[in-house]
Structure formats: C-alpha cells, structure tokens
C-alpha cells in the first residue's frame, strides 16, 4: 500500500492537467446558459419571421438597469482585485456593493415589467402576443440566473467576513467574478438583441 506522499507526488506532475476542474466546470455551465438563450433568441427570430407580431416600445427602465449592471461589473472587478491584493476591507465593501447593485437591477427589471403592463404588453392571457411574452421570458430567466449570482455573492461575502478569501485562496472568487461578468454580458446581448429587433421592425 502506498503512502499518501508518494501518491500526491505522482499526481502533482501530470503533464496534461490544464485548468482548475471547478473553474472549468463553471465555464461549461456558462456554455449551457449561452445555449439556453441562443435557443430562445433564435426562437424569437423564427417566430417573428412568421408575422402576426405585436409592435411595442421597449421600456425606458432598461437603460437604467443596463447602467446599473455595467457598474456592478466594475465593482465586482474591484472586489476581485481587492481579494488579490489582500485588501479585505475593500473586498467586503465591494462585494456588498455588487450585491446591492444586483438587487437594484432586479428592482429595475420589475419596474420595466410594470411599464410593459401599463402599456398593455402582457406575458400571458387573451391579449398577449409572443412578441411580448418573449420579452418576459428573456428578462425573467436572466433575472433567475442573476438571483443565483446574488446567492453566490452572498456566499462570497460570508467567506470574506470569515477572512477566507485572500490572494492564496482565489478560486471561488474568480468563479464568482466570471459568472457575474457573464451575467452582465448576457444582459447586454439580450438588450442589444431586443433593441436591434425593435429598430429594424
């Protein structure tokens, strides 16, 4: 029977290992989310091409929420850099700020939904049209993923309070940062897609 040291020695030098498995798995998860939204947006295009498509104005709140989510990406990056530099105070502040901005983003999206409803664009029901329903699906699912991101951030905040995130232990922080930036990018894509489709109409 081998001793642990020997086995570890054997495993430490594999020529082939490339990336941290958890980080890698995170990227693969992001790929699945990309495919999910690729599915939805292509469904949108296919469906729109068939006609019978409701024309309506996009809520103005989206500009505000877009701004918020872009700023939150910046604070997220700040958090990451703070962790890297072992600046724990800044780390806690910036993580909290990012979560707060995430929350504000959700509030903004909610406001956008209310705006839609008041201009009679519904998710479902007798007066709904897929043109409107799709918008609710895009924003709703994005929001679900963002809530997941806020949970992730809260876990990070918890670790930060216990001083368990620092330059020597960055993997989870890196994953959180990647995911948050991805959510921001995803929103920019979705909003860009919607703007494009509303202007071209």
């Amino acid at each position, binding site marked *: *029977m*081998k*001793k*642990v040291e*020997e*086995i*570890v020695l*054997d*495993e*430490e*030098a*594999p*020529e*082939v*290992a*490339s*990336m*941290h*498995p*958890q980080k*890698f*798995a995170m990227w*693969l*998860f992001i*790929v*699945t*989310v990309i*495919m*999910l939204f*690729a*599915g*939805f947006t*292509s*469904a949108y295009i*296919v*469906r729109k091409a*068939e006609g*019978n*498509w*409701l024309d309506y104005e996009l809520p103005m709140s989206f500009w505000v929420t877009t701004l918020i989510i872009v700023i939150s990406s910046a604070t997220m990056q700040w958090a990451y850099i703070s962790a890297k530099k072992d600046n724990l105070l800044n780390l806690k502040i910036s993580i909290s700020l990012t979560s707060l901005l995430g929350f504000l983003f959700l509030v903004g999206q909610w406001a956008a939904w209310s705006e839609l409803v008041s201009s009679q664009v519904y*998710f*479902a*029901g*007798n007066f*709904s*049209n*897929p*043109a409107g*329903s*799709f918008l609710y*699906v895009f924003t709703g*699912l994005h929001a679900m993923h963002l809530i997941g991101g806020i949970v992730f951030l809260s876990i990070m905040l918890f670790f930060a309070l216990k001083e368990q995130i620092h330059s020597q232990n960055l993997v989870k922080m890196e994953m959180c940062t990647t995911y948050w930036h991805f959510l921001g990018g995803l929103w920019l894509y979705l909003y860009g897609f919607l703007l494009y489709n509303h202007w071209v109409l």
Partner: protein
Amino acid sequence: MAIETHTNVSHDVHGHAHHDGHHHHKETFITKYIFSEDHKMIAKQFLISGLIWAFIGGAMSIIFRLQLGFPDMNLSFLRPILGGWILETGKLDPEFYLALVTMHGTIMVFFVLTAGLSGTFSNFLIPLQIGARDMASGFMNMLSYWFFFVASLIMFFSIFLETGPASGGWVVYPPLSALPQAMPGSGLGMTMWLVSMALFIVSSLLGGINYITTVINMRTRGMSFSRLPLTIWAFFLTAIIGLLSFPVLFAAALLLIFDRSFGTSFYLSEIYIDGQALPNMGGSPILYQHLFWFLGHPEVYIVLLPALGITSEIIATNARKPIFGYRAMVMSMVAIGILSFIVWAHHMFVTGMNPFLGSIFMFLTLIIAVPSAVKAFNYITTLWRGNIIFTPAMLFSIGLVSVFISGGVTGIVLGNNALDIQLHDTYFVVAHFHIVMGSASFFGFMAGVYHWFPKMFGRMMDPNLGYLHFWLTFIGIYMVFFPMHYIGIAGFPRRYYSFTSFDAFKIFSDLNMFISAAAIITFAAQSIFAFNFIYSIFKGKKAPENPWLSNTLEWTTPRLPGHGNWEGDIPTVHRWAYDYSKPNADKDGFDDFIPQYVPLSKTPHSNLPHEQELAKFEQEEEQSNVNAQH
C-alpha cells in the same frame, strides 16, 4: 444487495490533484451503495436503472405489438396489470395505445439509451481509461444520478395516472401536448412528463459537465489526446453534443410549460376544440418542432456515439489488430458531431417549409453519410484478416456494424426531401430509426456490458448464454424491423391503433402478425441476458485481471478496484491503446498486445521509427527526473 466489492479506503486518495485538505471517511451502506460518490458505483446504479427501464420499455412494446399483430385478440389476461386500460370487450383502450407508444419512445431514447448507456459507460470508463482516481466532482456525479432517479420516479408514476401518461408521441408536439383538453394524456400525464424531462436534462448536464472536465483536466501523465482510447473520444464528444443541445430542449419545454399552465401563446394560434375557439393567438407549433429537433437530431447521436466508441474498442481488442484509421475515426466523430447540429430540419420536410430550404437540409443531411461510412469502413478494415476472437461482446459489436449500415442506408433514402414526403411518419421511418439507433445503440450497450462486466463485478458472464442471447437478438431484430420497411413504403402511418378498419391496409395483416411474433421471441430472449447478468454477479466465474488481453488502463487495476482505482501510483501512459499484434513484439517479450503503460524504451524491437525517437526522448527525460530527485 450483496455485491462483492472490497474497497481500499486505507489510503486517503481523492480523484484530483487540487483538493483542499484531506478528510477521512468511513463508508456505510448508504454512502457506498446509495449516495455513493464513487464513479464505479454510480456507473452500476445507472446500469441497473437503465436495464430495469429497458425491460419496462420493452414490455410496453410487446403490448402494443399484440394489438397491431393480433387486433382481434382478447387481452383480458392483461387486466391484472393494466386494469381499466383493457376495455370490457377485452381490447386495448385506444388512448392507452397512444400512451404506450409515447412512453416506450421516451423511456428507450432518454432513460435507456441516453442515461443507461452514457451514464454507465462514461462514468465507469472515463476515470479508469484515462488514469484518474475518480471524476472531477464526485458530488456532482452523485447529483446527476439522483436527478435521473427522481426523473425516473416521476415518469414511472405518471404511467399509473387515471388519465394516463403523456400520449402525444415521444416528441410531444403542440398543440396536442399543450392543451390539456385535447386528449386525456395531455393532462397531468403531460405535466409530469415535462417535469420529469426537465430533471432529466439537469441530470444530463451535470453528468456531461463532469465528463468533459474530467477528460480535459484529469488524464494521467502521457495520456495525450492522440493516445485516448476511442471510447473516451466518443464519450467526450457525446458530452459536448449534449451540453450544446439539451439546453435548447429545456428552452422548448419551458415555453411549452408556459403555454400549458400560464396562458401564453408561443405555440398556439387559432385553435378550435369541440367547436369552441380558444383565445390563443399568434403562436406557431412549427417553432416547437425547430427547437425540439435542434436537440432531437443531436440526441440521436448522443445515443449512438457511445455505442460506436465501445464498438471500436471491442473490435480492435478482439480482432487483435490496431484500429484501422484512428485519426479518421476521431475526425469522423467530430464531423458527425458538428453536422448533427445543422440537419435538424430533415425531420420537418413536410411542415410546409420552403422547398429550397428543404434542399439545403437535404444536402447537409446526406453529407452525414460520409463520416458515417468512414466509420463503417474502418470497422470492416479492422476486422479484415484479424485473429478474430468471437466473444459475446465481439459478436454484439459486429452486429452493431451490421445494423449501423442497414439503418444508415435507409437514412439516405429519408434524407431526400422528395422521397421523405411519401415516407414521412410511416413505418419506414420506424424501421430506419429502430435499426440505426435502437438496435445499434442497444447492441453497443450489450457489447459494453459483456466486455466490462468482469471489471464491474469481478466475475465473468457465461459466454454460451451470451452467444444464445446474441443470435436470438440479432436474428430477432432483423425479423422485427426489416419487414417494417415494406409496410412503410406501402404507406402505413405510424402511431395508428389499428389498420384493420381500412381496406387498403388489410393486405399486411400477416406481416404484422409475423413482426409481432418475432418481437415476442426477441423480447423473451432478453430474459436469457437477465438471468446471465444476475446469476453472474453472484455466482459467475472469478475474472482474471485482464480477461480479454486488452491494452487499456482499466485492466491494470485490481480485480475489484477500490475507491481511487489504483492501489499504488497511477500508471503513466507511453503509447496509444491499439498496439495489438505489433510485428516483432515477441522479441521484446510481449504476446500480441503491448499495454499502454509499457514504455517505448522497453520495446526496442517492435517500435516504429518515430517511436524509436520518442523512446530516446523519454529515456532522457526519465534520467533528468531521477537526477533531479537525488
């Protein structure tokens, strides 16, 4: 369960090089057999669940075959199982016929040939063949099984609903599936189908993420991509295809759920039920078909590729020859993987699509025949003049090659959009996909079980029962599915309860009877396998460490590998997996196979010129390693 597995937990080893601290754990019955994080146990869980599902799905097909082959038969004897689904007259309830067809398809495609096949062999073989102690994340792996299990439970219970399970076909097209009032099966049964499939997708994604991460990050030293056994290539590509296509099915299902339960109209427009106009406006049922088949077509390759990978491995081993065209095999799998994403509309030629678009999809579809043919040729050339050893696994693998070819040919017929207009939704399609997907993947599944059974359970299956099982199955499936081509060409639509009420279709009553009889025999033959499998787990002959004299790493583990797979160091890999019958190997002291862990420097006589170079390089490196350590 008293499966005999000894474990070596005495050394604290975990699957990956990066772990944050050691934790000792004792194994209890629960952590070992139920909530196990060990890839081998999870593989066996998938295997057993998959086989149980296979028998359930098979039994369903026998019931509806009875209806098709013997429409006047009195089925009262089934009442103890089916209860009210057998009518007063002793006939099968037509609604339940549709439910059976739907459940049969769903179970076979997703639960048996996706979860059962990939789940079993990707889990079992990836760590063992790439030289890893376990999967990248044992926990995610465990979750993957338990999501599958819950999905299974929900699907299973939906069978017993009073309104019956989902009945709109395994593709669950709306509007039929979207409107609970459209048919009994579109009620709660359909809801449960959707919930079950959503969980199933989560399970597949968790599994797939794990397989890809493990293959990329956890190969042992020397296991470069060009030395990976073809099994691993197949599982790896399958997982990638799944990762890209399952989310799209999820999207399709989600929109369907919204239509069903929240009143949206993604797929619904201008529908009348019982003379009542529904309020839904502006939806498109074709949209669902696009989304579904964007998964659906890749899905057929998700089902097939693992079987092809297993076959490559078994054929090379038992022909005692290197696999012919290793690179071509890999490249054709990659090509199939890519092409599988751009052919989906060949399932939709009759949806009124623009004929020009149809031609483009026809063209892309027919291109798939090229890499498929490359694979078929490579199998045959590997067999050509080999020292073939006909183990049951080998027979099933050769059987796979046979059905893959016969089913591929009819695919080319269907791929022509002009021909498909006549053949779509007839028994010709049923024949096509049962031969090329159903039978081929099932044969790959069986081949894998016979071949790796010794590694899974430490015992051998009985080969004679295996031969009997093979021949009955092989002849059986051809007798079942071959005649269906004629029935299909004659225009018999699929998913019809009965043909006897149409004069035009009466002519084939005999043939239908023949098919049903053959199906019953084939299904009965599977009990030979069931007996052999269960008996051998407990009472089979003890397996040697390398029963098939194979090159791959799993055969370097103990008879019953414990947690961590290798007791000592993980072997280092020095060559590809197919050095069978290498010329001059005897001068190096080897028989007709040189396992992957044998350094090139140990085989100076049999090395090819470029390997001789590598051997020198290897030796220098070893030297410098030794120096560095002193």
